[in-house]
């Protein structure tokens, strides 16, 4: 995307649509308990919303929305959320990933439901960050 394309319709429409894709992606993540969906699908859509602007309106505008240097740290954070959820359960006396022991309520089944939600958010963030990071590195990469 080094050459800037000056088609205003493509640029404007993609910028207008991008937030709605993100909104829908959030719906997919948070509604994964009740309908097809979940962290990975939602995360991919979040990444798609970012990449759409990058593709249609060029890198500079895309940077305003999501900086290249955010990708890997965000991905790292996402995996850490997942890992942290599992490890907190371990520290609180259960086995690894046993959400049962998390301090989120009294009903064990409901606590498991909350644990799943936490984990799915982690998955979504990780997938979004890393997919964007891979795209950016492939695009701007300057190997030895």
């Amino acid at each position: 995307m080094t050459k800037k394309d000056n088609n205003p319709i493509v640029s404007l429409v993609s910028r207008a649509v991008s937030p709605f894709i993100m909104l829908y992606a959030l719906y997919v993540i948070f509604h994964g308990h009740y309908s097809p969906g979940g962290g990975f699908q939602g995360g991919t859509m979040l990444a798609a919303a970012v990449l759409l602007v990058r593709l249609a309106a060029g890198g500079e505008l895309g940077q305003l929305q999501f900086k290249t240097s955010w990708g890997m740290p965000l991905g790292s954070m996402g995996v850490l959320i997942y890992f942290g959820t599992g490890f907190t359960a371990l520290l609180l006396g259960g086995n690894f990933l046993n959400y049962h022991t998390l301090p989120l309520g009294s009903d064990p089944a409901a606590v498991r439901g909350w644990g799943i939600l936490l984990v799915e958010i982690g998955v979504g963030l990780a997938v979004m960050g890393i997919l964007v990071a891979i795209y950016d590195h492939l695009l701007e990469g300057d190997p030895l």
Partner: protein
Amino acid sequence: MITILTKNSPVLIPLLFLAFGLIIPLVAWKRNNWAWPAMMLASLTSVAIAVFNVFKVMEKGPVHYYMGNWMPPIGIEYVLDHLSAFVMLVINLIAFLVLMHAKKIVPLELTRREPPYYAAISLLLCGLNGIVITGDLFNLYVFLEISSLSLYGLIASGEKKSPVAAFRYLIMGTIAASFYLLGVGFLYITTGSLNMADVKAILPSIAGQPTVLIALALMVLGMGIKMALFPLHGWLPDAYTYAPSTSSAIIAPTAAKVAAYVLLRVLFFVFGVSFVTKTVPITNVIMWLAAIGIIYGSIMAIAQKELKRMLAYSSVAQVGYIGLGIGLANPWGLIGAVLHVLNHAFMKACLFLVAGNFRFKLGHSNIFKLEDSIRKKMPWTMAAFTAAALSMVGLPPLAGFFSKWYLALGTIKSASTNWTSWIFLVVILVSSLLNAVYFFRVLEKVYMKPMGKKPKDVHESHEKHEKEETIEIKSNEVGASMLIPTLIMAIGLIVIGLLNAIIVKGIIAFIIPAGMK
């Protein structure tokens, strides 16, 4: 706190490396020199946990750990038995020593890219440890992919040709992993379970089905590619040669061995001994391929002029020993194979570290450019090299002798029922000879030539020449951070050789699967 950690000790090593793989790039984002200490910390801790695990298993027997407290086959289980505890200890010990060596050479070969490089090593170790300890067929695939992806990166960050080697490995590795996944799919559809122990319990009732046969064939094929069994080794020489020194020193002893370990697990702990030896005698196929691989790898190693490439072909041969031990499918052969995992890890890591030392000080590792002056310049490095080379040849009391001894016992035992096994004994003996040829080629260059008798120097005056030599050659040994791990490995070879009876009796004797005679 301590009780919580001891209770969860099987799962801690993969998690530790995963956490450090995540944290190192974050912490060392701007500070490249923080990456190495962090990685050393992780590695040291992992060795401690691995030692703890070994003692735990020796004391209590196999430990099962259920992820999320779901009993298998509903959830995923980790099985810490003698075999997995032993292999994990080997992996983490080798990784620790190689990482100690990495301090100086990584900044040289990968300028300013240390944090992601060490993070990739951490993830590689996470993947390898996860593969070794898991008791679930699909979970093994996931961790196999973690380790493979980091392997591609570790290889491709080397010299100019390395991405090509890594790409070839990626294609082969993806085929391998996909074949394994397909095999798991067949097993799941016919048995309805993904847990190894569960599948083993179900399989005898459906052993005759073509699907099960093809599943076995696909899984063996996939792991054969990963461990570089003879006709499937195409990716290995380039990958080991062009990778950075630290990468080859950490990949060669661990990655291919772990694939061999998976082969062992799949054959004897999923399909069962009688299935793979009687119903479908696939162990015979593995045995023959391994034997051809031993001879082929040794001969190819003789033809190489680059030290790392020679070591890579020698790896093909040494993996053949492990394959031979697995293929023999009797206790002696299996003990030989598992002991060889340990011995070869130490030998190959030591040799690759020596190659790294050469590259650090001389700038190359070409055998033909090695001179006799090296024995003065790098005496300790050459001593370590000599010890490892003699161990590879199989001279007692060095470690390499004993695994070959057990393998030979295995072939003799197998020969009592099947005379063709004598051929494998001959293969072991001949290959020792070939090993001697390609290592003495190097040793001869360094030790046998009398100092300073180069052809072009002959017509110079004798006194002047002597003078020059005394001025020229002084010790130019690598620093302590690189020398100590190399020497520890060399000493380790002698120690393992002397203590082999204890290792075999204490741990390896317990791994013999049920039904193996």
